[in-house]
């Protein structure tokens, strides 16, 4: 079965609607200026070396508005991209990596099963960044999370509290955030997530995570006089 045949039962209207959402993004027009099919982006692309993945195909499918290939890529390809932007070497000024960023957002906004799957195991990171304003924290260095990094991770986690106190900058004596963040700063961040629709996005893709985040943010937002839903 060809890949496109796999999605043959998805109505063309659905594919068109999703493509239109990508095209409506304000960044879209800056990501595509036609394509020479030269493959320079592929030669520079780390993900193309490792996966069956091609930024050239991403650019071409979007430029030709090929809904079948676009939908296949939306489900099977975009999460392989490393977002390194090596493909900005494109002689036409295309930005396949940027196009993929937009496609990922559309996949998340629409709660595609493939997007949910791609985020499996990633929820704790989304939780960390949205609730603390810092994406990784010292206490995430646990041996069971990074077994391939060897016994060094266990050494860090065993000594974590002590080693953090042995850091001269006063802002770094933290373990659950990368640095000390004030409550006012956090309140403002929570307001941003609410006011820009990011909370709705999370609800679409992970209702459980959304509930936990609302709970965590409630107190600071209430203090700030913001009525979260």
């Amino acid at each position: 079965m060809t890949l496109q045949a796999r999605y043959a039962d998805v109505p063309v209207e659905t594919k068109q609607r999703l493509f239109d959402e990508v095209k409506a993004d304000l960044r879209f027009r800056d990501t595509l200026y036609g394509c020479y099919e030269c493959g320079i982006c592929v030669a520079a692309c780390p993900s193309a070396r490792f996966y069956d993945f091609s930024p050239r195909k991403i650019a071409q499918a979007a430029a030709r508005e090929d809904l079948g290939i676009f939908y296949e890529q939306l489900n099977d390809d975009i999460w392989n991209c490393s977002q390194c932007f090596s493909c900005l070497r494109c002689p036409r000024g295309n930005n396949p990596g940027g196009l993929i960023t937009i496609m990922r957002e559309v996949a998340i906004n629409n709660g595609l099963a493939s997007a949910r799957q791609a985020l499996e195991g990633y929820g704790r990171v989304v939780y960390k960044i949205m609730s603390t304003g810092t994406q990784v924290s010292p206490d995430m260095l646990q041996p069971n999370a990074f077994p391939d990094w060897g016994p060094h991770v266990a050494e860090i986690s065993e000594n974590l509290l002590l080693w953090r106190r042995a850091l001269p900058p006063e802002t770094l004596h933290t373990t659950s955030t990368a640095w000390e963040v004030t409550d006012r700063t956090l309140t403002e961040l929570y307001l941003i997530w609410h006011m820009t629709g990011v909370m709705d996005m999370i609800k679409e893709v992970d209702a459980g995570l959304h509930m936990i985040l609302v709970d965590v943010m409630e107190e600071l937002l209430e203090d700030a006089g913001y009525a979260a839903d």
Partner: protein
Amino acid sequence: MPIPLNVLEARQLARHVQGPQTPPTEDIREKVFELEAKGEWIVQRVPEPWLPVTTKYGRIKKIPVGHTWHHKSCGQCGHIPGYSTSIFWLHRALGLDYDDPRDQTSCTAWNYYASATSNVGAQAAVAMRNFGAAYESGYFPQIHCGTSYGHYKEVREQLVAHADLRDEVRRICDRLGRPFVMPEEIVHYSEWVYAMRDEFARRRVLDLSNIDVTVHPACHYHKLVVEDAIYDPDVYGGQRTAVVSAVVTALGANLKDYSTWYDCCGFGFRHILVQRDFTRSFATLRKIEVMREEADPDVVLTHDTGCVTTLDQSQFAARAHDRKVGVPVMSESQFAALAMGAHPYRVCQLHWHNTDYRPLLEKMGIDWRERWREFEDDLERLKSGEKQFLTWEDADA
């Protein structure tokens, strides 16, 4: 293939001809000032004194010497804290005034590039909230993370290009009670290290003439919004960014080339967290092994959070497969600090790094056993309650 000498000489001669009068693309900073003139936002000026550096197409960029607001990196502060500590230590070594704020979030772009659980408006609002906080502090932003730097430059382009996005984010900043401010320049810490490299060289206390160094240029530094990165005809003929490489040379170490310098490290944003088979393979097969094969360096220096983490941590598993790995990894800020006599544990915090760095320290003439013993004494004092935290005074003792 090496660049022919006559080509290099021609480029060096043309250094002053090519810009800033004749830049090949439009300068976003002019638009930033136009928007200020229209009353759309405040432009935070680079404080005096600043140093002029040359960007890719010859334009001059202003790098503030001091009075900077340190936009920290979550990956650096969280997992390789000697990176940030060394940046601060370098400022202190030069007696420069800086602000290490608590009123700062990360740029949140690591998550954005990994999971797309955000959007243009939110990302721009996070950036402008942080810029507003910097402006209110009176200090000018110096950005520690390569991804924050690249992402904020993308945000600047989007805000300049789209009035409706500006309106949305201005409304949010108003709601937060923050001023709507765009800095005159978006400055990465490695640009500051590059600009200050001769000052560091003057304060160098170690002989590095037998240290071979390879450099990994960070993707989000030189690939995102390319025209804003620093290039210099004296460094690889201006064919790749000069930051880090020029610092290696200024400190008297040997800069070694390798063929896959343009390749990314394999970080992948989501991959490093949930798909590390890709990260490990790419970091070791396309970067570390190639470097060892072609340049056999004593150390790899880079200038971004993800690159240090990826290149350093990926080597452990590769060793089990008998791959040719085993090259220590650190930032150029840590390397420069070591060269200037900083403590490898109190300041550079090398015990947070994975790949064995001790042979490098020995070759640099640093007695790591003695330094570790001193650090263990510090830890004992912390444990016994004699001290609560290690301080800057302790670090420089």
